């Protein structure tokens, strides 16, 4: 799965029914469930072992070798990791990815929340809510091609508009200063409708009585937003943040199709660099080592944010 899949984990509250649904008197079936369960879980367990668990172990193993797909792999210990820390392109990839994540996440969250508030305030119908989601349904590859055309320095519509209003035209994807920001904003554009729907669903769960109380107190819209909506949305905000962040680190398709990491190294994000090392230069060991480091980074981020999520949940409710 590429970035921005819908792998959203709901708050822990949803697990509660399971415990309640377990009356003590029903233990007698315990013995008979085992074989059935094994049968039902067989495909998933095989899939997990073959395509998740084993590859992870194998990946760590490969990262300790100099394997190039052609010759026999040779054990090199932690050499790949040592090289990694000396590799300016690796640090560049981390920096570029960080710029991407920060620009993408901040604009995506801000625009998503804005759209959600507009949808709520104006009681928007289904058609508009669907329309705003459209780019999210389109493959990244197609988005990259369409935006390449829209942002083309010569025939792109956006530059026509810039020219029309008397501004200087820009070579968005083709300028090393603008390229990574362009990639980030293109993905913001693609995902903001999806983010908005998550926020919108969150806003729907806020009880109307809270708003009535605020209105009775004579609170203005902005005041209500700041003191009621925003605090009550904190768990959702944290959740959307975690999900978007994990997806954001995995930026690949847009870069692969629109810029190939260029111009120069200005859009060589970590995912793309791993891909190039492993599948273009066949330096599997080095690619695997970078993947391990990326996993460690994402894992740490997720843990920190999930902890923050849990903290906000308790004081949000």
């Amino acid at each position, binding site marked *: *799965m*590429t970035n921005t899949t*819908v792998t959203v984990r*709901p708050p822990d509250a949803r697990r509660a*029914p399971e415990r309640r*649904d377990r009356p003590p008197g029903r*233990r007698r079936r315990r013995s008979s*469930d*085992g074989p059935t*369960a*094994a049968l*039902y*879980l067989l*495909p*998933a*367990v*095989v899939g*997990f072992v073959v*395509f*998740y668990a084993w590859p*992870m172990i194998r*990946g760590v193993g490969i990262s300790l070798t100099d394997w190039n*797909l052609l010759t026999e792999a040779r054990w090199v210990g932690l050499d790949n990791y040592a090289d990694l820390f000396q590799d300016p392109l690796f640090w560049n990839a981390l920096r570029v990815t960080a710029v991407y994540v920060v620009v993408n996440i901040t604009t995506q969250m801000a625009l998503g929340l804005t759209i959600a508030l*507009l949808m709520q*305030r*104006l*009681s928007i119908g289904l*058609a508009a*809510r669907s*329309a*705003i*989601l*459209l780019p999210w*349904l*389109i*493959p990244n590859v*197609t988005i*990259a*091609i*369409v935006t*390449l*055309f829209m942002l083309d320095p010569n025939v792109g519509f956006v530059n026509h508009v810039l020219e*029309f209003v008397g501004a200087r035209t820009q070579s968005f994807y083709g300028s090393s200063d603008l390229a990574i920001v362009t990639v980030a904003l293109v993905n913001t*554009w693609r995902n*903001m*409708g999806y983010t908005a729907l998550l926020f919108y*669903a969150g806003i729907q*769960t806020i009880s*109307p009585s809270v*708003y009535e109380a605020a*209105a009775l107190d004579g609170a203005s*819209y902005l005041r209500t937003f700041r003191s009621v909506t925003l605090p009550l949305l904190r768990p*959702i905000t944290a959740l959307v943040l975690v999900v978007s962040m994990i997806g954001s*680190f995995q930026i690949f*398709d847009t870069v692969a199709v629109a810029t190939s990491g260029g111009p120069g190294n200005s859009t060589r994000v970590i995912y793309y660099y791993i*891909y190039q090392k492993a599948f273009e230069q066949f330096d599997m060991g080095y690619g695997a080592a970078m*993947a391990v480091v*990326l*996993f460690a980074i*994402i894992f740490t981020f997720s843990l920190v944010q999930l902890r923050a999520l849990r903290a906000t949940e308790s004081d949000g409710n």
Partner: protein
Amino acid sequence: MSSSTPPAAHGTLVRRRPRRRPTPSTALSWTALIVLLVITVFPFLWMLRTAFTANSDIFSGSMSLVPPDPTAINFSRVLGLATPEEAAAAGGSGQNVDFFLYLRNSLVFTGVVVTCQVGFSALAAYAFSRLRFTGRDVIFTVFLAGMMVPPIFAVLPNFVLMRNLGWIDTFAGLVAPYLLMTPFAIFFLRQFFLGIPREIEEAALLDGAGRFRVLTRIILPMASGPMATLAIIQAVTAWNEYLWPQLVGRDPSVRLLNVAVATFAQSSPSTSPDWSGLMAAASLQVVPMLLLLIVFGRKIVDSLGFSGVK
């Protein structure tokens, strides 16, 4: 589902204002929303416009949404229906790009992946929500942790595995990693199964029905809504896959539309790209999703809210 929230939830603040006289701030909100909607939808309209425009007319600088001289040549070019001469005259490379084949590959890929994912995930979700066995919660937690593995981490060893099996450039290699195990799908369905009252099922079990019968005759029909929702979400995800299909499915016989469109873009001369052809190819990707959105709009919009919040 979040859709069941009464409309009063979002109308309260707005309704206080008289409908007839929109306040300046309401007008401002409408303006902002309309601008955002235009920004969201316009590129696709422009894409369609260009797809119906001959390459020679793109440089005319016209900003009208209606093509100056509408033509379907770009579509017949990318679908391999035009003669090489026609294609070359329209600004293409002259070679046939058989997108019909890739479109079919993509539809088969998406269909197979979604069917297996929903089926196998339903089995696993039922086991996790209803059956009792040692280590259930541990296994479930481990499965969930699978969601945190960045795909590229698994892609490397999986590629090696496919290579050893000789499955590169085969349909089996293309679909294998997606079929059996999808942490999100299992998690998603388990949540719904947990919400189904046990009483109905208990009665059936007492009447001597087997577990599989209970699952297929009682649980699945009751969860048909969520199952359809999951299928749509997974279909969108499968349709979007690029990294893996372009690694193991480069051969034209198993090439997916996504890979073909990207290859087509990369082989287009950078000095004078075949924009009309590219936009026609891109339209082939957009139109199926547009149809999906028109037919299942409510389901998609509501379910996304659900998957994120509840």
